[in-house]
């Protein structure tokens, strides 16, 4: 074992770690039958290790090295061109009951947000500092609360906000998802605590598939991933009462996506 737990772990915890890992190793000495799969080619690729090949780590296929199918032509489509991706994203978001606003410019985006604030009588709106958001803030006809100012984020003040405006890491056409992070989208609370979430994004941030999105996020942040990355797919919802869909369970009841470009 090269990776000892951090010093905070008690000696008892360290021994439970050893006990569990020993049980696992003992259990895995008997190889499992190959996975149940329809495609026999994949099964052959995934043969369990034999006694002559005890190195289970390197010999194993993982999902990312499955036969050349970068686009995973079996998952839902992610769109081949930027136009297709934009159309797919818009369609998926609308099916999820998010509201999409197409804007030609940052100015136009500003007036869309200001109109939202006016028509819904927002008293207080939270935002964070981002090149896409800063130009919109002066146009807001209400009190504004910055979450990443010198005083830091105050959860009581954030709770009292009608809406939160954030940027995002990227958008996923395949699923209609918006990826926000604690680093680039104003922390953890901004996109979840206010009753309405407004996302401001540029069309160049649209990716085809979830796989592409995860790959790009890893590349962007390198070894230092944000402490939270969240794929938001539509406004908060629940079906817990008689399996009937209700929007706005605990998170935002409304999700507005402002697409610039």
């Amino acid at each position, binding site marked *: 074992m090269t990776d000892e737990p951090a010093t905070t772990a008690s000696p008892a915890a360290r021994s439970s770690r050893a006990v569990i890992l020993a049980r696992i190793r003992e*259990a895995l000495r008997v190889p499992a039958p190959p996975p149940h799969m329809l495609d026999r080619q994949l099964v052959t690729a995934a043969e369990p290790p034999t006694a002559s090949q005890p190195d289970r780590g390197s010999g194993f296929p993982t999902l990312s090295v499955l036969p050349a199918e970068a686009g995973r032509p079996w998952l839902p489509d992610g769109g081949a061109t930027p136009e297709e991706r934009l159309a797919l994203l818009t369609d998926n978001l609308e099916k999820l009951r998010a509201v999409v606003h197409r804007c030609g410019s940052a100015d136009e985006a500003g007036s869309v947000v200001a109109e939202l604030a006016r028509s819904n009588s927002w008293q207080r709106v939270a935002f964070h500092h981002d090149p896409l958001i800063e130009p919109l803030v002066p146009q807001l006809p209400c009190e504004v609360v910055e979450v990443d100012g010198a005083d830091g984020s105050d959860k009581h003040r954030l709770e009292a906000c009608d809406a939160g405006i954030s940027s995002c890491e990227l958008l996923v056409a395949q699923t209609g998802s918006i990826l926000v992070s604690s680093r680039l989208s104003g922390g953890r609370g901004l996109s979840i605590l206010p009753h309405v979430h407004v996302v401001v994004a540029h069309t160049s941030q649209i990716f085809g*598939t979830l796989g592409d999105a995860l790959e790009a996020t890893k590349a962007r942040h390198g070894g230092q*991933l944000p402490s939270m990355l969240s794929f938001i797919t539509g406004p908060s919802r629940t079906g817990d009462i008689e399996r009937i869909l209700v929007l706005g369970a605990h998170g935002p009841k409304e999700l507005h996506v402002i697409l610039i470009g």
Partner: protein
Amino acid sequence: MNHKRTGAMTTIQHTAASTSHETGKKPPAEAASHRGAAPKRQFLLDAAAHVADTGHRTFVNSALGGYYKSRDAQKARYRDWEHARDAASLAKWTAVNRLDELLEQFTSRFEAHGGTVHWAANAEEARSIILGLVRKADAKAIIKSKCMTSEEIHLNAALEEEGYGVVESDLGEFIQQLRGEPPYHFVFPCMHVRRDEISTLFHDNLGSEPTDSPEELTMIARRHMRQLYVNADVGITGANFLVAETGQISITENEGNARLTAALPKMHIALAGIEKVVANLDDLSVLLPMLATAGAGQPMTCYNTLYSGPRREGECDGPEEMHLVLLDNARTALLADAEQRDALQCIRCGACLNVCPIFKNVGGFTYGTTYQGPIGSVITPHLRGLADWNHLSGASSLCGACSDACPVRIDIHHHLLHNRRNAARTAPNWLEKIGHRLFVVVASRPWLFRIAGWIARHTMGLARRLKPPLVREWLASRDLPSPPAESFRTAWRRRQQAAAGAASSHRSQPRP
């Protein structure tokens, strides 16, 4: 008991809710009404009660109706669902068979981000780790998002015993907490509860006005919960996946309550079974959509969130501490059974419950387990002992709907057969054994078979009337057919003779 369920039909038709309510705090009579009895007896009694309760069955089936529709619509968006199942199965199979290596990789990467991993060999150790953390945080209020693993270790009871208040924030779990019941279904915890019951429950506990609208009921819970999120010191969540490559945990939810639970309190504790680990972040690009589609008929669950440690330098909020408790609790016993190891691939989507004819008839409480339905029937004997829980292996029609529905291709219904076989080996039923021996003796001797057949034909009517001890249980819900007038062999011989006679008479007739 039945009078409570007779209202189910009227509720479905959106007419006025029934007026005779029980108080919300009192669990309804049919909820695990035989809790405390030995597992098999409890199962049989509760199953009999639920099967007779047609209102309950109609209600549950109607609630699932929408699920089938949306699941099929979402499955159709996959260009090849079966291939996607292959990929998901392979991803989880690989992870389970590299569990030791991936857990160590995960732990070192997770801790590199500033979180702490705790290993718990059993439920008691997990509870004491979490209690220790809660004490250290000097918690005044604890908010919790849905976590079946915490049900498995009875965490809430342990916290409450120590005087800590803990509130379930998932709407379904919150309703079940107020009702004093365990979840009915591990994905849809209160799918058996009618809206008028929830209205009364909220009226009694939260002082809200009665309402017939699911939306208004949801808003009552929303308003009640908001300050609880803001004021909680500790947030407890589960985890759906642990990503070894990046040291992140992935939490899937629709309501946003897990997001809030992990955002606002100063300490975040996550509890997960060791089998939740996957090798690569990329695996989630297949597993997350499939979990949503198979489990709830969605393209993606509303929030799929990856956490790696507490608030980082430069981030404006988030917890100061993050702890992950990794639980074994007999999962390694299941891992040691190579034949059924694939049951650890389960991503807890609940698809097998939703399609199971047994689940739909006996209901979730009858199982008496944390994990209900077909997958629960497979894994519970491993987690809690085959001797007491083998009867669940019989809670199947072996139709295979569960295996067909499983997004990671667990061979669920065959594993139920494996459990039956294992139980027969380890604790044979002597009566069955003698019966089979006797049958072999009789069936291999035609003269004895003939005599036995004659006796059976002439005593069946009597058995039907007298219901002797050995067949009484069987006859309680079934009818014996009327005995045939003659044996198959006699009938066959007669038929052959008749055919031969007809053929010869046909041949003797001149052709026209």
